[in-house]
């Protein structure tokens, strides 16, 4: 019985491993493209009722507009909700053709997928309750720190803990909303995560003034759209569209719309002007992994 199960599981993984190679031909033939989106990231989130919005979601819709021109027919967008855990397998097995959520481009992932040009550079920061008196990572000694399972922040936190010789208790939320709830309910003193995610969660809190983002930049991470590995034609088509959007100024405008103006659902602004790192990525389009940023 157990042996059968194991064989079944292995077969399932083998099937997952198989994938089509030419995405452009595939989307042309089917007339539709599967776009991977997220439910509660700052760059890509849902308003419910299968409506997906956000900076990266809208940027992806424009990329698909350009792809439509390239394949010569209007592509139907199929929105596919992905999570931190399943996004890479889903891109690999062909369920998702283009994933534009909040995926960090790092060397480990580059073995499994290809990344388009970096369109947003994320910095990992610390969110705390405004009255907690925590100002930097050193103040976290002896405190409880929340972060989200399945993100790079967990490793960042562990590295900082070791390097700075401080000791804190880690608790892992199952998703960002859960981690923020840990902070809000007092089960954690701090929430370490991507700055944009912290800002988005704080803006959605009952009383945003109760929270603030403090401390040094714990890690700098390039965020980019993800495509299947070894499909240079499709990658180039996506990259060309991003380069076009940067060149004609529509991408910075789109950034302004999603980060500096009131956005749904709460109609509050994230108040996050583009950082120098993000602007540098636009000025010089590249798909360097996170490891290259750390060297600087």
């Amino acid at each position: 019985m157990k042996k059968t199960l194991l064989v079944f599981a292995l077969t399932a993984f083998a099937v997952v491993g198989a994938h089509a190679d030419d995405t452009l031909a595939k989307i042309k033939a089917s007339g539709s493209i599967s776009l991977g989106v997220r439910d509660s990231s700052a760059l890509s989130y849902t308003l419910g009722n299968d409506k997906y919005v956000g900076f990266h979601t809208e940027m992806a819709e424009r990329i698909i507009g350009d792809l439509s021109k390239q394949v010569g027919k209007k592509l139907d967008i199929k929105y596919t909700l992905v999570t931190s855990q399943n996004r890479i397998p889903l891109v690999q097995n062909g369920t998702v053709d283009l994933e534009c959520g909040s995926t960090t481009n790092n060397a480990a992932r580059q073995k499994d997928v290809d990344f388009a040009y970096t369109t947003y550079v994320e910095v990992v920061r610390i969110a705390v309750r405004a009255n907690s008196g925590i100002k930097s990572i050193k103040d976290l000694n002896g405190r409880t720190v929340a972060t989200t399972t399945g993100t790079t922040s967990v490793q960042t936190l562990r590295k900082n803990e070791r390097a700075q010789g401080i000791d804190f208790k880690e608790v892992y939320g199952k998703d960002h909303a859960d981690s923020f709830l840990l902070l809000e309910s007092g089960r954690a003193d701090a929430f370490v995560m991507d700055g944009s995610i912290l800002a988005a969660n704080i803006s959605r809190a009952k009383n945003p003034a109760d929270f603030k983002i403090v401390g040094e930049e714990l890690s700098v991470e390039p965020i980019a759209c993800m495509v299947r590995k070894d499909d240079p034609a499709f990658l180039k088509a996506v990259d060309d569209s991003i380069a076009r959007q940067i060149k004609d100024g529509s991408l910075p405008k789109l950034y302004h719309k999603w980060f500096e103006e009131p956005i749904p659902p709460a109609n509050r602004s994230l108040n996050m002007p583009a950082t120098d790192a993000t602007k540098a990525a636009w000025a010089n389009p590249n798909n360097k992994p996170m490891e290259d940023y750390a060297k600087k």
Partner: protein
Amino acid sequence: MSSWDWAVYCRDTVSGEQVAGCFAAAPDQTYLQWMLHAWGWTVTVSLGALLVALVFGSVVGVLRTLPNKPWLVRLGDAWVELFRNIPLLVQIFIWYYVVPAIFPVTQNVPPTLLVVVGLGLFTSARIAEQLRSGIQALPRGQRYAGMALGLTTPQYYRFVLLPMAYRIIMPPLTSESMNIFKNSAVAFTVSIPELTQFYYQAGEETARQVEIYLGVLALYILSALVVNRVMVVIERRLRVPGFIATGGAGGH
């Protein structure tokens, strides 16, 4: 998919470098050490919850079969309906977020204890139901025989009904004990760093989802199998010759 990379378990969790012998000295940790640590959490939560479930399940199961005590029977019924009809995940969230908000004293209770209680009480409703059916499966004459001998209600439950009822329900009790190990994965949702949490996090960090998944799977199977074997041994030891058919081995 690309070839297997089982050496992933010997990597250091901070530097990502291979550690000779697979066990790093503190404070360093390899993924193997992390997984065993996570397994420890799974076992702790499961065994703790099993203990809570057996104690409360037994009491409530007995309450539901008491003669001439309609209010105690109703209390037992309400207990079972309450804990059986609310999804486990919702119950865990209520214990973790809602109870501390209503009763501030519970704020300092360790999360592990809340999960053990939550999972234990959920399972207690199922065990109570099984024990009730076990007691009711006995011929009514047994109860009357106990009464006729002049035993008090606690006495005839203790010496006549329960010893036989527990023997009858050993097979479903085995399933329930194995279920509790599998259900313990909900502890992940309230930040207990157990096996499922390890799978999500380590898989993400190492990008070797399949190897990590199979390792975690093996530990779950091993845990459930050990529980199964222990229960089978207990069942054999306690068997009363001629009372229950001796054909079934109690396995699944």
